[in-house]
């Protein structure tokens, strides 16, 4: 019994010593790696928390890829079908405080050009207010209006007009 306990102690001491030398060796390796710089081929990754948006999601996430909000004639109230997209963009702004969003308001060709500048801005402001309502900071958003000056569709038909009455969401900083 006494002999077995002596052997165990010796073993433990041995293991401890091995562990010690190993530890020192690892530290040395780490230092030399640092001195060698960043070209070691090692890949670094930012920590992501579950559920947080990153810039790549702007291109891949189905909800964030919705960047155009459409409106009815001479209206600036948001239709229910765009609430989900607005909530996603609000969350993106919350998740990424360095991100900057531009909301560009547009109108169809009916009505005068200057009135439509006002209408485009009103629509941009409506989307901005909804994004803020979902927690996106106003300081991350810029609203501009192009009125009826940049139509996506050129015919004088309701089909075209409905495509031109819009707010385009873009990110000047992702």
């Amino acid at each position, binding site marked *: 019994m006494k002999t077995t306990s002596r052997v165990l102690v010796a073993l433990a001491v041995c293991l401890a010593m091995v562990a010690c030398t190993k530890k020192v060796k690892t530290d040395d390796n780490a230092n030399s790696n640092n001195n060698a710089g960043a070209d070691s081929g090692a890949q670094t990754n930012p920590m992501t928390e579950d559920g947080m948006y990153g810039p790549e999601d702007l291109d891949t996430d189905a909800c964030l890829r919705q960047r155009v909000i459409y409106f009815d004639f*001479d209206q600036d109230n948001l239709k229910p079908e765009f609430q989900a997209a607005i909530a996603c963009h609000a969350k993106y702004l919350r998740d990424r405080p360095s991100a900057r969003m531009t909301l560009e308001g547009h109108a169809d*060709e*009916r*009505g*005068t*050009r*200057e*009135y439509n*500048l*006002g*209408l485009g*801005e*009103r629509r941009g*402001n409506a989307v901005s207010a909804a994004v803020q309502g979902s927690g996106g900071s106003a300081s991350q958003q810029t*609203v*501009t*209006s*192009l009125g009826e*000056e*940049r139509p996506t569709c*050129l*015919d*004088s038909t309701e089909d075209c007009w409905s495509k031109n009455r819009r707010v385009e969401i873009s990110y000047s900083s992702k």
Partner: protein
Amino acid sequence: MKNFFQHLICLCLFVAGQSSAQVLDLGVISGNEGSLPIAVVPMAYQGKMTAPELQVSDVIRADLNRSGQFRSMAEASLIARPSRGSEVRFNDWRLAKQDFLVVGRVVDDSQGLYRIEYELYDVAKQERMLGLSLTSRAKGLRDVSHQIADQIYEKILGVRGAFWTRIAYVTANGVGKNIKYSLMVADSDGMNPQTVVTYSEPLLSPAWSPDGRKLAYVSFERGNSTIYVQELNTGAREVLASFKGINGAPAFSPDGRRMAMTLSKSGNPEIYVMDLATRSLTQVTNHYSIDTEAVWTADGQSLVFTSDRGGRPQLYQVSANGGEPRRVSFSGDSNAKASVSYDGKRIASAQGKGSVYRVSILDVASGSWQSLSPGNLDESPSFAPNASMLLYANKEGRRGVLYAVSADGRVRQRIVLADGDVREPAWGPFRQK
């Protein structure tokens, strides 16, 4: 030698091609029944220099026709070609049912100048109403022709003519990323177009200074709307307003010292008046609606503007110092972009009914409206300085075109750029000699 001629032909083709691409194509659209018959006889060149290319009588005839007040005899129908009063057989012109007759000739003046001598006759009375002469360089013959048309118009109707004036408008050429916007100035008949500014971002809302020397306009070249003022003779320009939000709808006051404009720096489009000397701003409207497109009444005391404070866009009038606006338009679903006649008696507007927008004129005293245009998307009416005619914009297919229409709506003429989209017409003030 052969080479020289090839070059000459190439040069000619180039010049011809350029002018056909730039000159506005004019065509009378509707009739001018009930207007005054006048015969304008071609004015023969009787000098020793090279005969001028421009036939003065062609310009005069076209001007008088476009006004809707006159119908001039077609050149081919002229029964005689006298060049002075002593050669006129009045009975022949009376039988040809002409009320008025213009005869004249082009002779040499000193130092290579031309002199146009002309006479206006009342055919029934066989009386000379005008006998005048004007001198001009060959290049200035269009201007002189318009001045003669103005003199004839004023003598017969007692109203100052507005043919010797200029118009400003915006063109868009190309598609997608190659689109180019240009602010243009041309003679009142669309001839002699000149580019004032060109950019790849939208330009809109040109507004003349009362002396005709400057244009204010809105450009998006900085990304956001910005108001510029540009001197036409030098091309020099300055930024007048570049606040956060909308900077739009500039309008010079009648004395040229103030500028009405729309700014949304408060978060909402409101009408402001800027003192151009001090750049200080007075806020005129304060309402959560869209207030825009202010224009001045001739006395400089008040502004007529567009507001949707009642639900849809309508015209309102307010003191230029601020105060409670009074609604002016009560016809149609909407009214926008007012143009006020020089005497304040009439206000033109783009009036909407459903999806149809037409130029309509309000007689301020009676409150009655007259529709002037038959299109579906007619907008941007702009009175001539004598209020006898208006310009407006219309869309044909995907292309914007301009029309000139007599203020009674009887005569309309399309003014269309050979290529591209034309919009935002603004009729300039009377020109100073």
